[in-house]
């Protein structure tokens, strides 16, 4: 069924009885060409692009919980292409282009909203870096506007420009950046993959990866064994555990990142605003909630919840940057599990096991990569060659030292990015 305003009108007039399931609940088949472990955003995206770009539909996505229950269901919905280093730049640029047509492509409105991402800077050093980054973005073909203090004040007058510790010197505006309705992205991709014949299997936890003489042959699941010619691991937040089923150790440490949403408020924040003050960032959803967050909790965790110091740190940063927020109430907070790599950049690559591929290490930036990650991983699974947008996301770059993409220059420690 194609979605449209006419369809809504027709169904509304006839009692809304005609709406069909957006995806099936198929029983797993004994064998697939490709099994994707993980039905989060990147796994669903991989399945969608395998079918759409490569015509591969004898594919199963195995999800231990519900579709879209990974970090695609627990993020702060920001989409941007404002990276500084080769490797990341072209990848996120490609992703932004996919975002710009995603609703029409999926026939599912993911509410991609290009209201602009504004990175504030609070010192001369930060201004220099913003200018460098803006130049990199322009060279990549994306958009960047360096604003001085008054330029920022014109578009976001409610910030605290004269905070003694973090005065606002200006900002780097990325007009094509914005937000999307995160659950809709997962559901739209799921519906698109299902419609093309991919089996999306929920409540199907993978318990083992079958390997015969260095080659993957299938997976063990709570719903029985499934044979597969190729297996892709796309399980951000559990990458280490699933990779360990194949005897692999990864350059990944799992950390918790908290996020918060306020009660619904009339529109007051148009852009996505970020600041170096505690990595604070904020936007306002189309429903009215202020969606915001900050730094990691700074210890290894799989708990999907944070602790009080992390939360208080974010609130402090919010009050520094935007003192009006003190009159809003927090409605919910949650925690997502981040695959933190030593350079803060992701991995899309083959593994030492033949037929086993991995897409992981998205740190805290996986949501905006959802279409391009699936696109590139599908390309790798289908052709055994990395896609042109993702040639540098190699698993062995830390061992060899070649192609490390440390955007923040923080050094090889998992929790510093």
């Amino acid at each position, binding site marked *: 069924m194609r979605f449209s305003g006419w369809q809504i009108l027709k169904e509304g007039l006839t009692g809304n009885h005609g709406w069909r399931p957006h995806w099936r609940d198929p029983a797993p088949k004994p064998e697939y060409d490709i099994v994707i472990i993980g039905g989060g955003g990147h796994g669903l995206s991989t399945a969608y692009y395998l079918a759409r770009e490569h015509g591969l539909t004898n594919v199963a996505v195995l999800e231990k919980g519900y579709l879209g229950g990974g970090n695609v269901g627990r993020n702060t919905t920001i989409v941007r292409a404002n990276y500084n280093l080769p490797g990341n730049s072209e990848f996120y640029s490609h992703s932004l282009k996919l975002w710009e047509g995603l*609703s029409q492509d999926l026939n599912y409105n993911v509410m991609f909203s290009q209201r602009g991402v504004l990175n504030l800077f609070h010192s001369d050093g930060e201004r220099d870096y913003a200018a460098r980054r803006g130049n990199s973005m322009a060279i990549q073909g994306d958009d960047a506007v360096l604003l001085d203090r008054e330029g920022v004040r014109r578009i976001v007058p409610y910030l605290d420009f004269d905070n003694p510790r973090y005065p606002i010197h200006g900002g780097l505006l990325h007009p094509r950046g914005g937000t999307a*309705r995160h659950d809709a992205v997962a559901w739209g991709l799921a519906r698109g993959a299902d419609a093309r014949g991919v089996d999306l299997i929920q409540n199907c936890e993978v318990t083992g990866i079958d390997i015969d003489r260095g080659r993957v042959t299938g997976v063990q699941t709570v719903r029985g064994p499934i044979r597969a010619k190729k297996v892709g691991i796309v399980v951000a937040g559990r990458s280490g555990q699933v990779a360990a089923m194949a005897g692999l150790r990864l350059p990944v440490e799992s950390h918790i990142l908290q996020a918060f949403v306020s009660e619904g408020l009339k*529109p007051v924040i148009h852009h996505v605003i970020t600041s170096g003050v505690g990595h604070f960032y904020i936007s306002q959803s189309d429903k009215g909630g202020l969606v915001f967050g900050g730094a990691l909790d700074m210890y290894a965790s799989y708990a999907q919840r944070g602790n009080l110091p992390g939360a208080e740190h974010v609130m402090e940063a919010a009050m520094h940057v935007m003192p009006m927020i003190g009159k809003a109430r927090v409605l919910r907070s949650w925690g997502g599990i981040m695959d933190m790599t030593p350079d803060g950049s992701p991995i899309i690559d083959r593994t030492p096991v033949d037929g086993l591929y991995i897409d992981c290490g998205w740190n805290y930036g996986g949501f905006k990569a959802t279409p391009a990650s699936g696109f590139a991983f599908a390309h790798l699974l289908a052709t055994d060659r990395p896609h042109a947008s993702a040639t540098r996301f190699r698993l062995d770059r830390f061992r060899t030292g070649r192609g490390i993409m440390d955007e923040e220059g923080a050094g090889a420690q998992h929790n510093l990015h």
Partner: protein
Amino acid sequence: MILAGKGRIDRSARLDFRFDGRALSGAPGDTLASALMANGVTLVGRSFKYHRPRGILTAGSEEPNALVTVGQGAHRAPNTRATVQELFDGLEAVSQNRWPSLRWDVLAVNDLAAPFFGAGFYYKTFMWPRRFWKAVYEPAIRRAAGLGALDGGHNPDRYERAFAFCDVLVIGGGPAGLMAALTAARGGADVILCDEAPEPGGRLRFETGEIDGMPGADWAAQVTAELRTMDNVRLMTRTAVTGAHDDGTYGALERVALHLRDPGAAPLECFWRIVARRAVLAAGALERPVAFAGNDRPGVMMAGALRAYVNHWGVAPGRRVAVFGNGDDVARTAHDLAAAGLEVVAAIDSRPDAARGGDWAHHPGSVVCGTAGGRDGLEAVTIRKPGGETIRLACDALAMTGGWNPSVHLACHLGGRPQWDAARAAFVPRPGMVPGMDAVGAAAGDFSTAACLAGGIAAGNAALSALGRAAQAIDAPAAEDAPYAIAPLWSVPGKGRAWLDFQNDVTVKDVLLAAQENYASVEHMKRYTTQGMATDQG
């Protein structure tokens, strides 16, 4: 309206306030909600999506409808619960999510288009032509978003943070919490008792039952007075425990001066980080609405809330009241209303074997299947009798009760899941969900006053023994010990829209549509319909 001579607050003193510019008056001890009810105001807000007219539904922090903006300029606080905000002289409140006025709201037209605005409709449209999303559709959606508004100016008010440490943190000061705190304190433990209300007592402040031969509210005041004299007890009123974190760390927000006209040097609020060796969750329970057609009309209220307005504040939304539910609270409510001089139009109990509770029209095995009235309130309800026959009864208000849900929220903060209790038709906490915390009283599904008192003593003693202190031999005071008798009643079948989530405008139809489209996992259901995602968490 005011019920002369009823209630426990003194209405001889007068506080002036304004609602939407209209000058009104209340009394010390009123909440904004009880004061509005005293003045006969029934329309207090508009819902999020359909801009339906809404009245006061509850008497506590769970309120979904009566959200207002209090204060002016950069001091103004949006989405303030009128049911929590204490009245002070000069209070200024305005209604939200309406234009140009609460009575005449242009976007109420959304309600007429409801067949096209079902769950998730926006995912299926607004895609063509592509540039219209940014230029036309999304700006229109964003303009309609949200309830109250921030001022935009820097928040000029003062706030504070503080640390506290204790042996036993008691969360909630109803009968269970008071007894737990008293037991632990008599055993020598350092105790902090937090209660979100201005005075401890919980439901005892609102009900008519007796403890040890005195009104429950008087008993609570007596225990509170004893606790106040003890050096090892810190009584924190107007303080909501907001989070349970690892290793006995709790967050709590104290409303220090939000009830005052002029806070002076005091902060408005204080955020406490409390580290406790043991905790007792005595947070009580929240009453469930019943989903029936038109259940969101102003004048339809929770039964427990209506008892609170009548018994404690001495006010009522109207003279003629019907009561509808699925348990013994139907008769209890009818009794209290009749005792306050109100006319009980009907006691409608879905249980075929429900006993007649008093001298009023008794409708066992019956349900309310419709309501009628205007934006200012209820005029009539339609009752469906066991044989299918329907009758229409004129009334000004309807009290509804679908049973009680234990307030298990804090117990779930570390990721533990509560368990379903079929007899109580509710989720109750499992032991050990938060290490060091015991749930007790209504929060644990023990709803009788006697069970709450005994449970509180046991929890206090359990905390003492965990701390290596001697248990206290305390006799439970005498109180009602009625069994909790209900029959599950989740929704009343029939035509018309029946609300599940009042603020976000989620109806039974939306949930059925979501299931039809295979958003059947509870997480999919929640996220697709937005059920349970409003300020009252559904």
